């Protein structure tokens, strides 16, 4: 097999992934052409674009597994919002009396409280869904109302500031350019190490190993993407801290979904619950854990949200669940369960952010932004259905 046919085969095997990446590139190109001086893809906007995707993409990273198990979580937006106001409340009202003048400690404690709040709510919802057998749709719909009330109770209908110096770094900070480059070099080195290591292990087990050239080409391709990204964002302020956190989260989640029993079982449960049960999988515990993880990620998103906007507001997290679900679906997660990838959801999240950002730059009124985003979502799924049917 020569290199070219091998590359086309790879494309063919992962057609859905490449299609969505292509869609992203198209959207970028379109907006770049429509904005003066290609402002859309200039470093400043490029950097902001990725920053804007982070909060909902934390949610999407957890939502993939929720949808994969055949469930849904409508409460994630409000849970992230609730976490954000809880965190803002501690930042503005508690720490300055308990531990004044210790911004780093205060920020760290806020993070812990945020993650705990999210996780606890996840435990509660997960318990009701899996052990008390109330459908997830209903539990999380109810949870959404409860949290909306919770936000009003904590904020008393007012906005709480959360713009303290150390805390703001979480979602507004940047790595200095040199740190970006060091990180870049480490990532590239890891990519190459991983390539050689995986080939070595495959040989040891006596499997067929893909041609060296194609592995090398793939690794070089991803390394170039990483380097190019760092190059661009360094021309603005450097690597964005929240994007870095999101990348780490996404990598961990992707690893969990592929390389752990927990992840595999989630896919099996969504693919065929009965077969999973007869294979000795503890379905209730697995689904419970999926919701706990979702709650934890809502905690992460909530902390990021508070830091990002610098406030805890009554409208915090409004509609984020829809963005998260849309990101998953754009990324190829099947609402029937059993199918979906973290990587796809991240690209889906980026597409949603790219649309929002681009439409804002073009001064499209908010009302029409929703119309466009909704239409794109439906169009994307239609195209997927269409091509699957006519393959």
């Amino acid at each position, binding site marked *: 097999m020569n290199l070219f046919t091998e590359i086309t085969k790879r494309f063919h095997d992962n057609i859905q992934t490449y299609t969505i990446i292509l869609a992203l590139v198209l959207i970028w190109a379109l907006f770049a052409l429509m904005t003066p001086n290609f402002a859309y893809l200039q470093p400043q906007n490029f950097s902001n674009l990725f920053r804007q995707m982070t909060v909902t993409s934390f949610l999407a990273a957890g939502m993939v597994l929720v949808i994969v198990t055949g469930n849904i979580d409508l409460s994630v937006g409000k849970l992230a919002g609730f976490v954000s106001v809880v965190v803002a409340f501690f930042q503005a009202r508690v720490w300055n009396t308990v531990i004044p003048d210790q911004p780093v400690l205060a920020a760290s404690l806020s993070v812990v409280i945020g993650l705990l709040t999210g996780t606890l709510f996840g435990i509660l919802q997960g318990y009701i869904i899996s052990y008390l057998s109330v459908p997830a749709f209903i539990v999380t719909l109810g949870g959404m109302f409860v949290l909306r009330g919770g936000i009003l109770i904590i904020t008393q209908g007012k906005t709480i500031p959360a713009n303290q110096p150390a805390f703001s770094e979480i979602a507004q900070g940047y790595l200095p350019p040199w740190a970006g480059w060091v990180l870049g070099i480490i990532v590239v080195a890891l990519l190459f190490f991983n390539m050689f290591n995986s080939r070595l*292990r*495959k040989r*040891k*087990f*006596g*499997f067929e190993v893909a041609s060296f050239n194609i592995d090398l080409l793939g690794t070089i391709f991803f390394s170039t993407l990483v380097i190019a990204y760092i190059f661009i964002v360094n021309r603005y302020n450097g690597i964005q801290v929240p994007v870095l956190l999101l990348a780490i989260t996404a990598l961990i989640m992707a690893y969990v979904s592929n*390389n*752990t*029993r927990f992840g*595999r*079982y989630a*896919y*099996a449960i969504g*693919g*065929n619950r*009965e*077969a*999973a*049960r*007869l*294979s*000795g*999988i*503890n379905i209730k515990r697995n689904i419970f854990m999926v919701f706990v993880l979702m709650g934890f990620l809502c905690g992460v998103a909530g902390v990021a949200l508070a830091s990002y906007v610098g406030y805890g507001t009554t409208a915090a997290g409004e509609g984020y669940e829809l963005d998260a679900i849309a990101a998953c679906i754009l990324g190829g997660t099947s609402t029937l369960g*059993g*199918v979906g990838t973290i990587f796809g959801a991240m690209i889906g999240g980026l597409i949603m952010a790219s649309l929002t950002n681009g439409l804002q730059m073009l001064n499209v009124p908010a009302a029409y932004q929703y119309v466009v985003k909704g239409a794109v979502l439906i169009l994307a799924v239609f195209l997927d259905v269409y091509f699957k049917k006519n393959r």
Partner: protein
Amino acid sequence: MDNDIILDFQNVTKKFPGVIALDNVSMQIRRGEIHGLCGENGAGKSTLMKILSGVYPYGSYEGKILYEGRELRLEDRSIRQAIEQGIAIVYQELTLVPGMTVGENIFLGKEPVENGSINWDKLYAETREILTKYKLDVSPQAVVKNLGVGKMQMVEIAKALSENAKILILDEPTSALSKTEIDKLMEILETLKSHGVTCIYITHKLEEFFRITDNVTILRDGKAITTRPTASLNQESLVQNMVGREMKERFPKGNRQPGDVIFEVENLQAVDPNEPSHKVLSGVSFNLKRGEILGIAGLMGSGRTELVTTIFGEYGKITAGTIKLEGKPIQIKSARDAMKVGISLVPEDRKGQGLVLIQAILRNISLANLDQFSGFFRIDQDAELAAATQQGKNLALKASSLQAPVSSLSGGNQQKVVIAKWLLTQPKILIMDDPTRGIDVGAKYEIYKLMNELAENGVSIIMISSDLEEVLGMSDRIVVMHAGRSNGTLEIADATQEKIMALATGIA
């Protein structure tokens, strides 16, 4: 003479990856007759029906089908189109909406509408008309879920006839019916015949062919062996044509010496966990020896599947009795418990319970075995692949790659994937619930060979089967179930089809 033929198959061939489901089938069906279609599982009956109903559309098979002299061209998945042309199927599984009335079901999708709203009086009047015309004894306003299976079947038939079906295909219509219900069905078929409706009748119960059909076509391994007037056949010649070979050929002879008893079930009683008043097992006793193949026979509904799923910890709530493994009483509350003590179950419904169809072969094989490849957190994917590859080789699995979705495989190979999954758990006892259902003869043979090998290596196998010949051909001993009880155990040396049937029907 020619215009007497309503349906004419000419050299119809249908291939699936790795399997030829229909091999150059030619047969003719006359207008107004009841035409029996007979053959073993996997002989091609259901494929033929799926072509007639448009599930396998025009162009996906080779050859020609003439319907009333014109070529039948059904488009993709357009079952509607088949119905419009007058071809209707009454499936084995009923397809009615349980919460709706008889009339609503019959007119589902074609309700009489006046000024935008349904004319209920007309709907029920027409329903009554159909029901009386064909002497179907059901009330138009009865809610379907309150009817017995036999009446539901009548509603299905009425529904098909309400579309002015010219050809009515009945796929194993009697499998869930009682004797009186079967008698009633036979009467209905006679009535249909007198109204000029052509019927294609598929069943496993040979006596029904002699009772009702005019002509019988025998299918074997995808080929139409012969079409003959039923009167010219008898049970022996029918079976001979169906099987077409000596029993010895079908079942490879193993060379096994069953050892000591390792597993005992005594007076096991269990109830349906969702309906504790419903007893599913009312006293089952048997034992299993090391390296033995124990057949479990019984009619549908005799509690065979309930027995093994209860043993496996995934169905019935045990109310009495003991289960002993290697002399020690064991309690199995879930599949996981069963696997821990070395019991595995290849379930009855391959697609519904055995496989995650959308996932790769590899993931299906490893699904029940991930503990083997996992440390605290991480799955060793290389070890996983190596083990699955080895299983695939041992079972002669035919697949382009272990990464291919399991849905792309033929039935036989899918079943091998299920078996591979369970063998990887290294069971002491392998329970196989109808392991060769719906797979082709070649794959069956390979699975039989595999069972022999396993037994020779000391694995004890419990095999449920609806196919009496299979039970007789493969087992060392046979437990016969009747009405939730074990009604007797036969040594293979003195077991015959007649003795099994006598025990299964409760005569003996």
